[in-house]
């Protein structure tokens, strides 16, 4: 009897092992930390538990910069994951690497109609006429507003803000002491090129030439456009007048300022929604609004990141990689991801699902990002700038904001930054051509 049991359990064990071996393992690198990381791991686990063919091994590889850096090292060493999350501004580099399998090819091979994608994110990740990546965590910049402070100052909430209206509101919301020192700021925006980029798009300007690098490879930056000069000038003026808090480059500082009621309005990504609401913890009512514009609102580009399938996978691996991607694209996963994070769904029709609609009624802030997206014109402004050396270029733009705050005229600060940025772009483009 005992022998029989032992033999039986051995058989069971070997069967379990065989099953284990039959599963295809794919490596997935992502850069989602904190709450967002928990949500990603949740989806991975759900996928792994839902079928017996594929095991997704997910690894948090640090920030977006760390991730793409690790990937480039991997390309050199010939060791890359099957699937990797890369930030929006890495798009040009990823396509130029020649190391990716364009998503459109994989989707076609699996009879997936890419018209199911929401047009704006699809537009962003379409490079040289091809959708290269799966838009995954797509975000927009938003204004987060403390409605209690707004009401007290007699400012009615609305979702669309011209820059001049936002300035008037921020001035009204600012509280100073007798000596003129600011006790409460009207607004806080972390020093980040992303907001300058979005202001271009939203005001109907290109951030780089050749229509945001969409008609042909971008060879020059265009952030000296009138909208950006006005925006950076506005920024510096607001800081000088003690209306905007200069909280440095950290988004965390902006969120802290908002949660601690030291700033009435902050600009942050939709991705911060869940985290920020948690930070506020119901102390006051928070409403989100669209990102500001100069004269006429065009709509913003998406930010966030997308997933790239890497080249050189075996047929089994590619099938498994697609299996995971198509799981993430299922309406159910999309809804879960959207409501769990604040990123918006990238598949059409998800916003109309009953559970999503219901959640939006309960928490209208989730809807703002979607409304902003839906009302965005689909054109090359909102497609967003596609350029190489983008991370480096962003550093120069952030530097220009800081120079302007220090006292340099905005136009001059941006012009100086453009010289450096164009040189960086030039270096990138000439290195790629070889």
């Amino acid at each position, binding site marked *: 009897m005992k022998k029989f049991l032992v033999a039986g359990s051995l058989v069971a064990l070997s069967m379990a092992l065989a099953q284990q071996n039959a599963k295809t393992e794919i490596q997935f690198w992502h850069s989602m930390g904190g709450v967002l990381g928990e949500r990603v791991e949740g989806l991975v686990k759900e996928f792994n538990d839902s079928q017996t063919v594929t095991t997704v091994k997910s690894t948090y590889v640090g920030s977006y910069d760390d991730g793409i850096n690790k990937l480039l090292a991997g390309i050199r060493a010939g060791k890359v994951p099957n699937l990797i999350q890369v930030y929006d501004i890495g798009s040009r*580099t990823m396509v130029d690497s020649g190391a990716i399998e364009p998503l459109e090819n994989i989707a076609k091979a699996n009879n997936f109609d890419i018209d199911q994608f929401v047009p704006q994110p699809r537009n962003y990740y379409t490079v040289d006429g091809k959708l290269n990546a799966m838009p995954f965590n797509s975000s927009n910049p938003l204004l987060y507003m403390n409605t209690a402070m707004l009401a007290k100052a007699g400012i009615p909430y609305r979702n669309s803000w011209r820059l001049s209206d936002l300035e008037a509101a921020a001035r009204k919301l600012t509280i100073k002491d007798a000596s003129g020192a600011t006790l409460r700021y009207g607004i806080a925006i972390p020093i980040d090129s992303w907001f300058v980029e979005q202001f271009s798009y939203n005001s109907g300007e290109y951030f780089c030439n050749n229509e945001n690098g969409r008609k042909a490879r971008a060879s020059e930056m265009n952030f000296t456009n009138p909208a950006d000069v006005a925006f950076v000038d506005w920024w510096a003026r607001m800081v000088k007048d003690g209306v905007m808090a200069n*909280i440095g480059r950290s988004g965390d*500082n902006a969120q802290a300022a908002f949660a601690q009621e030291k700033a009435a309005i902050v600009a942050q990504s939709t991705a911060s929604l869940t985290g920020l609401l948690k930070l506020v913890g119901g102390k006051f009512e928070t409403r989100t609004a669209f990102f500001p514009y100069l004269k006429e609102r065009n709509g913003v580009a998406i930010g966030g990141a997308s997933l790239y399938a890497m080249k050189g996978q075996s047929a089994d691996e590619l099938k498994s990689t697609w299996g995971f991607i198509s799981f993430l694209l299922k309406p159910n996963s999309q809804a879960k991801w959207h409501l769990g994070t604040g990123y918006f769904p990238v598949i059409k029709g998800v916003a109309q699902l009953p559970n999503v609609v219901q959640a939006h009624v309960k928490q209208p802030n989730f809807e703002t990002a979607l409304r902003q997206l839906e009302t965005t014109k689909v054109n090359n402004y909102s497609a967003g700038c596609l350029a190489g050396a983008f*991370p480096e270029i962003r*550093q120069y733009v952030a530097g220009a904001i*800081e120079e302007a705050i220090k006292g340099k005229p905005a136009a001059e600060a941006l012009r100086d930054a453009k010289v450096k940025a164009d040189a960086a772009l030039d270096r990138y483009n000439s*290195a790629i051509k070889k």
Partner: protein
Amino acid sequence: MNQSASSQTPASVAPQGSRLKHLKGEWLEGLLLLSPAVILLLSFIVYPTISGAVLSFQREDPFGKSREWAGFANYLELASRPEFLASMFTTLKFTLLVAPLELLLGLIAALLVWRPFAGSNFFRTLFFLTTAVPTSVAAVAWGWFLNPLSGWANWIVRALGLPVQPWLTDPSYAIWTLGVITAWAGVGFVAILLTAGLQGIPEDLYEAARLDGATAWVQFWKITLPLLSPTLFLVGLLTLFRSLTAFGQIHLLTKGGPAESTFVWVYRVYQDAFFNFRFTYAAAEGLTLFLALLLLAALQFRFFGRKVHYE
């Protein structure tokens, strides 16, 4: 004669041969004992330095494809870019603040605690604590402390009736703030080494000086400082290199900003390599930094090394 010589030879050769064998064995043993250090040094210091030097004369795309020889192109670019010169200047400014401050504060701390008194161990531990805290933890804590809106630093300043300060957000402040943070982190290390140095000074010298009626001030200048000079020299060299290669706190607190005001040399190497993906150019920057450090060390040995007083 012949016989005696032949009879002598085997007798004298035998011990010589065994000594040679013995020596050879010792040599082998020594090599064996040294090998872990030598292998580590070769593979982690010598090899990367050489391959970095080779890389600095090449050119490639961000993906490591199409690597080719480029002669001095990277070095010429380096010389032609104002950013690089600005970084050198920033590094110099930073070092001129950090190294003397760290040395001075460390010396004061060491002078306070080197003689045992009730609680001296407590204070020694306290001083060393800042060195025991990992850079990343310290940087995050400093970030909170200096937060422009909610940090304690500005809360204290405000309580004193002074205007709040943009510690890390103003380009003319940030480098000094980082300097103080860096010095703060290094004081403990300096204090420990100097305490050891102070304890090595023979007590009888002080006794003799006291008998001769020397004041504490004279004792410090005539005994303490000269006899501490070997340690001071070593510690000075270490603090200099530490401040020239400061990285963690800059990466975590300012990332070279605001307006590139804290873009020190090391940080530029890092950015160009791992952020801008220009490894060959970054290799040229790194190698230039390495040569500059080497030159600085040589100069220090030349000018201060001689003045050092060894008992």
